[in-house]
């Protein structure tokens, strides 16, 4: 039974991977905390299931790499079963009152933005200058630096890192692991040869060697798939593997440019679709517009212009 890492050989893992595993353990602990918070909320009917969801997820993050891989596979199916049966919901959080945040805002002023800015800036600096650490670990390191800055500026009790971390994790909810699952789906699609099938179908549309048409087909497909599904992330996995990689990246396009602009090309689709209800339809109801498509109508011209810009920008930056 093959596992990702062998416990006996942990010492040979290397610096960057060891740090990464430590950060995954921290993420696992945040999941556990979110589960425990659910257990404590006696008003929550499904608290047992909700806690179970977060505990399984924590288990995969912390112990998954050292156990046979199929165990994590089973955990993923369990997670999906729990969310499919609607057994995972938010529990009560220690949410600050409007008066309290107002009072703090008046006391701290615009300084309250400093920790958040630190988070972004420190990540870039650490990733640029501490190459041995690895860019992904830089995110975790910057979180530590920003947390210290936050403590210094707000002078809050240490516990709030935990309280507020769990509160936001619960706000985000199970959907937070969707990017990870979609990336994993992409891997399964590739193993099964899905990309090749799509590529063979698309080949008919793209004349040999036309980088520009290939770019246009990729960007427009991203937007169209997002319009149909209402979700740019899901479109990204499918379209990048089926079109982006074979027709752009394998033809010499810069993978970073293709990926970065591919996802935002999908967002042009998000702006045009009622399927993305939480961005386009619910807010219209909230604003009490006479026409429920008022937001989509306002966004349509900008979305189309942005899509055209994406095609040209990707073409010029990637090749």
């Amino acid at each position: 039974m093959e596992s990702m890492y062998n416990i006996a050989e942990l010492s040979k893992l290397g610096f960057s991977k060891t740090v990464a595993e430590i950060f995954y353990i921290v993420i696992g602990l945040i999941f556990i905390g979110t589960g425990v918070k659910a257990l404590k909320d006696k008003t929550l009917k499904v608290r047992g299931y909700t806690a179970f969801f977060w505990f399984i997820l924590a288990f995969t993050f912390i112990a998954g790499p050292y156990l046979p891989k199929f165990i994590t596979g089973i955990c993923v199916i369990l997670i999906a079963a729990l969310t499919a049966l609607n057994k995972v919901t938010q529990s009560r959080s220690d949410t600050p009152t409007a008066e309290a945040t107002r009072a703090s805002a008046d006391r701290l002023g615009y300084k309250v933005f400093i920790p958040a800015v630190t988070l972004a800036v420190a990540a870039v600096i650490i990733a640029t200058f501490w190459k041995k650490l690895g860019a992904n670990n830089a995110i975790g390191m910057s979180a530590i630096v920003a947390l210290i800055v936050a403590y210094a500026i707000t002078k809050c009790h240490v516990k709030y890192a935990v309280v507020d971390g769990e509160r936001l994790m619960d706000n985000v909810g199970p959907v937070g692991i969707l990017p990870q699952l979609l990336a994993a789906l992409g891997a399964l699609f590739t193993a099964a040869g899905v990309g090749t099938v799509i590529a063979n179908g698309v080949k008919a549309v793209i004349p040999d060697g036309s980088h520009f048409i290939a770019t246009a087909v990729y960007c427009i497909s991203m937007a169209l798939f997002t319009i149909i599904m209402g979700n740019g992330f899901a479109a990204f996995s499918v379209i990048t593997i089926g079109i982006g990689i074979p027709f752009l990246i394998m033809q010499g396009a810069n993978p970073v440019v293709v990926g970065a602009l591919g996802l935002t090309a999908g967002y042009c689709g998000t702006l045009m679709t009622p399927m993305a209800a939480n961005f386009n339809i619910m807010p219209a109801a909230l604003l009490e517009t006479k026409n429920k498509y008022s937001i989509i109508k306002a966004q349509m011209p900008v979305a189309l212009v942005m899509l055209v810009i994406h095609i040209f920008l990707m073409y010029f930056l990637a090749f």
Partner: protein
Amino acid sequence: MEVLKLIGVLIVVVGFILKFDTIAVVVVAGLVTGMVAGLSPMDILTTLGNSFLVNRTATLFVLTLPVIGICERYGLKDKAVDFIRSLKNATTGKVISVYLIIRAAAAAFSLRIGGHPQFVRPLVNPMAQGAAVANYGKVDEKTEDEIKGLSAAAENYGNFFAQNCFMGASGTLLIASTLTDQGYKVDALDVALKSWPIAVIAVIVGIIANAFYDAKLKKRFGNKKQEAK
């Protein structure tokens, strides 16, 4: 029967359209794709488990939540509101454009100031409507609806096109994770840096659209102010 392999794609599309639970849809699509491709149940579980573990990078954003949560507790949103309120004598388009800039900057720094309920409804839309009334007297229902649409749109432009400028954003991590898994050496820093041009362009395009709208309002109501006086 090569085409049969596309069943996973079909499951994702139909599942998302019918608004089934997204996580379950994705997992089912993966399992079915594996079966159709002739993998054994054990192979499917192993591939699924392996790719889930390898792609844990896509969930690294969780590490940033404690800091952002503390900033919220200490009045981050209140200060953003203060700043927008301080705009005076602006036109409708300018109010919305300033919000677009703020929203994009916030997204690039991973601040969750946004949201239609928290900013657009209580703040941006009333200020944008107020600016139209101040400049042209009463505006009609159609104009009101247009301004509401533009206010909500600014929230979406800023949020969508600027969020990947942050290394720890889930979109950035999805891109890096997917491409790495496919054998390309791509990290979150590369993706974040390459996301800046489109973020800046989106803000500029949005500002131009808002400026056009100001001009449209002027053409539509241009003379009314004199009448009111």
